[in-house]
């Protein structure tokens, strides 16, 4: 919104104090700027001369995923100072309203809309929902990719189990011939598959934690942000473990079924 001139000048002793502004830490590092520096500022495409401001402080912008793509620098003015820089007067983009204790946010919002025509009033939750449309899309995309990944993992696990069982068809045949029941062989194979899935899930969770740290460190450097892009929560680990268990059990059952339905004397055939 604002173009910040990088020309700095020393304050003039005895003159009226200059208006102040706050600059974001990334901007302060980029220019560079320090508290007490004077900057000259004008609105974009404004033909008026830039106005001087004193840097009163440096602030860290809150981690807002909505702004990560553009990642513009930010400066903060007193409202009248900003207004004086812009071509339009007496105009605000939005108001934040604090309600009295016990007031209903929805009815207050409807009342505001009825008296201030053309405005839209939102409660915090509704506002969060409206502004998170981008993330809802990203989340749906990740879900879709997750489903494909689960499908690929399931096929891989099933493939491995089928191959492992096929490799030992003769052993299974011998076991069956010496009296081990079908159900015992079936259970043994399913248990083996579950064990493989559990070990794989545990390794996957460990790998996930490491990868999440690498991803977060990478994007923290790319965007100079404290936002975390990848989170491995206990709920996610539990979900992955349960999925792994279920996939392991299904893969084991399918692989076992291919063996136990065949007569034991035929299991030795190539």
């Amino acid at each position, binding site marked *: 919104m604002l173009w910040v001139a990088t020309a700095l000048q020393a304050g003039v002793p005895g003159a009226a104090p200059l208006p102040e502004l706050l600059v974001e830490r990334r901007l302060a590092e980029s220019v560079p700027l320090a508290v007490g520096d004077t900057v000259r500022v004008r*609105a*974009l495409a404004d*033909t008026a001369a830039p106005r001087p401001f004193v840097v009163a402080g440096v602030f860290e912008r809150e981690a807002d995923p909505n702004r990560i793509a553009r990642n513009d620098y930010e400066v903060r003015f007193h409202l009248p100072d900003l207004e004086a820089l812009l071509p339009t007067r007496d105009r605000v983009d939005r108001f934040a309203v604090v309600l009295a204790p016990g007031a209903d946010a929805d009815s207050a919002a409807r009342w505001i809309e009825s008296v201030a025509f*053309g405005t839209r009033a939102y409660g915090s939750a509704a506002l969060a929902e409206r502004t998170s449309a981008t993330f809802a899309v990203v989340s749906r*995309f990740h879900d879709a990719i997750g489903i494909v990944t689960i499908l*690929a993992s399931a096929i891989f696990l099933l493939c491995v189990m089928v191959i492992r069982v096929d490799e030992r068809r003769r052993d299974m045949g011998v076991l069956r011939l010496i009296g081990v029941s079908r159900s015992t062989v079936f259970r043994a194979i399913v248990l083996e598959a579950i064990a493989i899935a559990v070990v794989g899930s545990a390794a996957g969770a460990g790998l996930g934690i490491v990868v999440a740290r690498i991803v977060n460190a990478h994007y923290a450097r790319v965007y100079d942000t404290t936002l975390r892009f990848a989170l491995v929560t206990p709920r996610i680990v539990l979900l992955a473990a349960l999925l792994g268990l279920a996939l392991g059990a299904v893969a084991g059952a399918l692989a076992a079924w291919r063996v136990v339905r065949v007569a034991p004397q035929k299991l030795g055939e190539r």
Partner: protein
Amino acid sequence: MIVSAFLRGLFRRGGRTALALAGIAVSAALLLDMTMLASGLTGSFGQLLGVSGYGLRVTPRGSLPFDSEAGIAAGDDVGRRIAAVPGVRAVAPVLGAQFYLARGDSAGEPLFTSGVDPRSQFLYRIVDGREPGPGEVAVSEPLARAERLRVGDTIRLAAELDVSLGRARQTRAYRVSGVADFLYDYADQRSIAMPIAEVQRATGRPGEVSLFGVAAAEGVDGDSLADRITAAVPEVSTYSTRELMAEMDRRLLYFQQLATILGSIALVVTALLVSTIITIGVRERFGEIATLRAMGVARGRVLLAVVVEGLVLAGIGCLVGLPLGLWMAGRLDRILLGFPGIPAKMTFFAWEPGRVLLAMGIVIAVGALAGLLPGWNATHTPLGRALREEAE
């Protein structure tokens, strides 16, 4: 003969081969999608920018098109100075605003309104009717559908809302001169376009322009023309299609990196699948391979047969994965086009034959390489040991 015998063996174990093929197909499909995603949106954006021939954008200094509410003052003068720059073929001014469709005393949802020079504009194509003249508007297809508007109908529009009276302020009747396909609108966006002078007058922004589209003369390089315009008109920023695409790339960095990560994972899964299948297959035929070697068949021929096995597995997996990947790309595209403000004509997944062939070639090469190690082991194990192991 040995190669075909190995391949027959592959298809004799139909169940596990089918599973491996399914796994490779899913991985290949994922890799294909990630390849298409990595450059899809930027490429599609570049095509959309150039589709009307206006490849450059001139904006208020320091801002990107419609990134801020800043405007270029004295637009007529600036437009003339841009048009005078050598290499400029045409200049199209645009002023963006928000109008409201008035129904009686009340106002409907806001409509994105573009003030254009109907003789020289790049935002839409008329599909029915003609360009708007004074007192006329072209409406987008979604708006025409929603409001059941036809060429010749009249609508009332307001540029402002009266907060105190609770109704649209200063409505004016406009005749619908045409229904247009707006190139940069998102799905179901309701837009209108009218002569720029009408928008400037109604919004109280005389002479102001939000941006100019500039068409370069034939054979003129966009980047150098952008530099010449910026030098001739210092109060503006000029972006060539390449620069706008680079900015788009910067904003979509996350998706590009995600595509790289997921594509790499898909490759690893393919390599694991093929190598697992081939390793086990080779182990099963250890004795067979040892016998062939004992009979005097050259190691190279046996190794070739194992590598071809991997190649065929990966190749067939790719053939199955290609349509699967295209289907998945369509589904994922539908999800991603839900991003607010993304033009409906863009796609996140661009079909580029060169890149697609490269991705599939990599999967097939990985399949062949995955067969190399077990093949090498089988052909280099001492013959006596191999035969003894098989006998045991």
